[in-house]
């Protein structure tokens, strides 16, 4: 009995001292689920050299914003950029961390990846339900008389609220006044047509199972699963493939402004080769918590220097160097680097 007791006491003492050591070096973050894999990959490497643990809960952007506003975490993460006015009322700082984007996936008999071309106006009409069949003249004209089936288009969208939908609907609002009028942009919207799948995997599944369908998923998800994507006409008028190059071009030509806390939807970037449906995901910090912020910034600064390869491996688009320098300037100006 005595022996058991002493072992128990020892265990309690040991574990509590372990907890104490951990608590001293833990960063708590919460928010968007989209960047979760890359944040945890970076954190794993960072932990090896610094001993700092990152505890990131991917509870969704809405939750991330809420938690950092209530100051229950060291940083929040959001797929949607927050407006400078909103940041000011919440006393928050904001900077982008990594870029991702959205691609169209289709399931049309005989059509291979990158064969079908779309532009903003046709995509918008499909998602509004105005173009109902694949052999519509507007689609065929764009594709140089490519033979498309005389079949009803099934639209597949996300059923859960998500940053992917926010980026996608912001793009449609930008290229199509009718969309902006009738539907608008947001994490979930009132879809005029189609069926809703839960998560990227849900959308991809419905598209794979439904002939003559079109949906949208994250670039990373489409790439990892070799889904059939389309080309898309960008703001400069070129048809581009979704690739690292076209996403990087979008990130480089987007006008991120530190004075606006980097508030920018990266859709319809002006670059010649830019993929039009890109978006950065953002980190939010509590302005007055300088000490905690320094630790968070140290982690992201390290990741910006050492994490590009890892990010690409996971199919995230690293920020271009010019943007990273701008962010460092922003950190310095706020006294947290």
């Amino acid at each position: 009995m005595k022996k058991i007791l002493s072992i128990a006491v020892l265990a309690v003492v040991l574990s509590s001292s372990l907890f104490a050591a951990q608590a001293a070096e833990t960063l708590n973050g919460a928010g968007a689920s989209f960047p979760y894999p890359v944040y945890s990959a970076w954190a794993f490497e960072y932990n090896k050299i610094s001993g700092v643990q990152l505890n990131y809960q991917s509870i969704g952007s809405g939750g991330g914003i809420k938690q950092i506003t209530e100051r229950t975490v060291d940083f929040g993460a959001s797929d949607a950029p927050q407006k400078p006015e909103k940041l000011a009322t919440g006393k928050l700082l904001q900077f982008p961390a990594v870029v991702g984007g959205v691609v169209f996936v289709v399931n049309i008999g005989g059509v291979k990846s990158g064969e079908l071309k779309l532009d903003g106006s046709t995509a918008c009409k499909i998602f509004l339900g105005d173009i109902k069949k694949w052999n519509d003249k507007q689609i065929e004209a764009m594709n140089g008389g490519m033979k498309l089936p005389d079949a009803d288009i099934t639209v597949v969208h996300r059923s859960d609220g998500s940053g992917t939908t926010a980026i996608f609907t912001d793009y449609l609002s930008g290229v199509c006044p009718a969309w902006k009028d009738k539907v608008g942009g947001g994490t979930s919207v009132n879809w005029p047509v189609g069926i809703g799948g839960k998560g990227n995997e849900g959308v991809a599944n419905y598209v794979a199972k439904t002939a003559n369908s079109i949906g949208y998923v994250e670039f990373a998800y489409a790439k990892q699963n070799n889904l059939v994507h389309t080309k898309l006409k960008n703001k400069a008028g070129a048809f581009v493939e979704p690739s690292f190059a076209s996403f990087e071009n979008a990130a480089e030509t987007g006008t991120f402004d530190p004075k606006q806390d980097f508030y920018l939807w990266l859709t319809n970037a002006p670059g010649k080769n830019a993929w039009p449906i890109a978006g950065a995901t953002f980190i939010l910090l509590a302005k007055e918590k300088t000490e905690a912020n320094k630790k968070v910034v140290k982690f992201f600064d390290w990741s910006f220097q050492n994490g590009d390869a890892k990010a690409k491996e996971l199919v995230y688009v690293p920020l271009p160097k010019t943007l990273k320098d701008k962010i460092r300037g922003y950190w310095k100006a706020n006294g947290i680097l």
Partner: protein
Amino acid sequence: MTTEAKKRNIPDLLFSLLTGLASFTIILLILGILATLLTESWPAIRKFGFFRFLFTVEWNPVKEVFGAASTVYGTLLTTFFALLFAIPTAIGIAIFVTEIAPNFLKGPIGAAIELLAAIPSIIYGMWGLFTLAPIMSKYIEPALQKWFGSLPVLGMLFRGTPLGIDLLTASVILAIMIIPFTASISRDSFNLTPSVVKESAYAMGATQWEVVKDVVLPYSKLGVFGGAVLSLGRALGETMAVAFVLGNNHRIATSLFDAASTITVTLANEFAEADSDLYLSSLYYLALVLFGLSFLALATAKLFLLRAEKKYSR
């Protein structure tokens, strides 16, 4: 009372205190949940009112117009069709197990029904998406469309492209999920029929069908009804299985091949990214509506079961 008696009473007292405490926790919990739902949904209640919220179809997070009509409609419709498919099947199972099956079959069938109840709902959802939905869209739904699509009123129910991700598939899955409840409660109620009465009927030359129809069913109909309403409660609240195959759309479906949405599915889908206060509050309001619906359903069931018990305990 002597000290000796008091001493002996202490464990008893402690015991009743502890069990009482455990029971009152339940009541406290329910009241707590109700209070939370009410306070969290208060902004939406003030903005939309009760009837306006209940009868507005639009669910538009962008414009911040929220109405429960489409989700309540979807919830009631999937539940209705699920019960329509499940209750006859379940009663059939129960009759077979209690009256017709030879003894060596009763055990295995009973075990199979209970196993069906033990399968987690997400498994049903995945099976529905990967197995049932393709079968529905390829074979069953086109056939239904061919047979019934041209009928005047009934044909309305079979319009549209059969995608397999729709009200019909969701209702079928729900039906499979609630069959075990209805079947086992029906079985228990059938077993309540006194054997003397049944044997007398047989002695008078009644056939098996007549005994079931005229003796067993009238004796146990309240119990069966109670079981059905309990399954209704379960169908109302089912989330994951339905989320996979319902298509998740905030529209009033007119065809069985339309996508729809239910209250719980909407909550599961949209809670994490609800980014405005009114949006979040409206989701809580939806939860409150479901709380009310389920309470009504279960209260009715309880009432009928109580009446059934009273009638037959006499």
